[in-house]
């Protein structure tokens, strides 16, 4: 799966969780600017586990890893 394919899946999932249109989710935006709180963020992590079989809740992810949706897609791509 390419980074772009992962990014597209992430955007669709995040739009659904954040109750936004897909077009309103910019891949270069940080998560905290999407109005997502801790529970919303956990929903995204669950979505990532169910979609990409990667459990990230207990990992040492940093702000930089989650700087943008694009950076998360790159992180997932490296782990797959």
């Amino acid at each position, binding site marked *: 799966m390419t980074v772009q394919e992962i990014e597209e899946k992430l955007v669709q999932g995040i739009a659904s969780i954040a*109750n*936004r249109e897909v077009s309103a989710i910019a891949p270069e935006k940080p998560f905290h600017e999407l109005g997502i709180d*801790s*529970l919303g*963020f956990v929903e995204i992590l669950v979505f990532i*586990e169910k979609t990409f079989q990667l459990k990230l*809740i*207990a990992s040492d*992810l940093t702000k930089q890893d*989650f700087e943008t949706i694009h950076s998360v897609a790159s992180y997932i791509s490296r782990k797959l």
Partner: protein
Amino acid sequence: MLVSKRKRYLSGSDWVINCLDRMMKNATNAGNMSQIVLVLAAPVDEHELRERLNGFVKSFPVLQGRVSRDLKLAPYWKIPKHAVNDPLLAVHRMDQSPADGSIVSLLERSANAPFRGPEDHLAFQVITDTERSIVSMTFDHRIFDARGAELFLDLFQQSLQSSALPIDGVIPFASSSALTQWSKKFLAGRNVNRRIIALAKASEPEGLPVPTGTDRGFRYRLLSFSPQETVGIYDRAYQEAGYLMESPFLLSVILQSLQELFRSRKGTASSYLIPVTMDLRPGKDQLQEIFFNYVSYLFYQVPVRSIAGRAGLIALLKEQMYELVKSGFPRDLAEASLLTRIAPLPVLGKLLNLPMKGKMATCAFSHLGKSAYRSSEFMGAKIDNLYHMPRVPAPPGLGFFSNYFNGRLNLVISFIDGLLEDKELSMIEQGIRARFLTGSD
């Protein structure tokens, strides 16, 4: 799906809130209400505020509705054709800047004042001196949840800025009696039952004895942190709990501070049980979703032995939050609660008490995060702060409610009068402040 301006079917969450309202009316001096408080940097023109509020509130007939049942027993909100009553607006003028204690005392009074009648669900208060003012809106939780109340005031502010009201308050509500898809509801109910029974079997949760007497009101303590302190707290949350994990960090600090209290009371239970609200707004229609309730709950169960070390406690809370969200518990709870609507409110009240033998939780917790009130002004005055003062169902009669506004973190401790002594309240406050600001374990 019914689309109607006069009838809006209640969801399972709405029905549970109605049940809590009845339980609170029986056990305390008023129903399941909350209060949103705006601290303004200038006095407001109370006459203009009254006039504007009267017009705005009365443009929403839904605000003067009441619960009814249809022939199939599905409960609904019966909406009058017109709203006729002006909302209550009480004004307290002060000559000099009052001490914070007297403001809290006035806010406590309005947070605990029952509404004038069964179709009255809102009341306003202004506390003003020559330099600043505080505007509060007390609301019936049956008509708004906390996020909805913020959205409603935001809409009011928007209406002031445009010559015409941007929306028509006679709303065609789309709702369903939800008397179909029974197998889906029963499956959700089975999942919820398994979780609740597991919680009940584990151990009886720690909780403070609710004082006797049915006329008690609630008391509050506001912990408001400066923007500089808030940056430090959020940095600490990031260091200790991870990116966007403020909620488990805040709860871990609250639990550690509460543990000091339970130790001093020689508590013997082996775990704490904490219900946490979760916003499930579908995001389909912003105007309709201002009204009624879109919350569900997570339940954290924390062994007392896990509370002392914060790193382990945070890891436990994060793991439980993750597993509950992954298992779909909050959505199953919302779905399953549709089944409860057939039960009359007194029966549902008894059912809610059954699994935990009347001791439903240790305390309630909610972190609202960033406010849905978007404007930096209210009635032309800059807003310095915004926070919530909810009444908490008793038991447990104790809740911690945090929010973020204008660069500030607020934490309100709400408790039924007599549950805590003043020195115990101060001990909790000092414990929270020390852990937030210095990181002490």
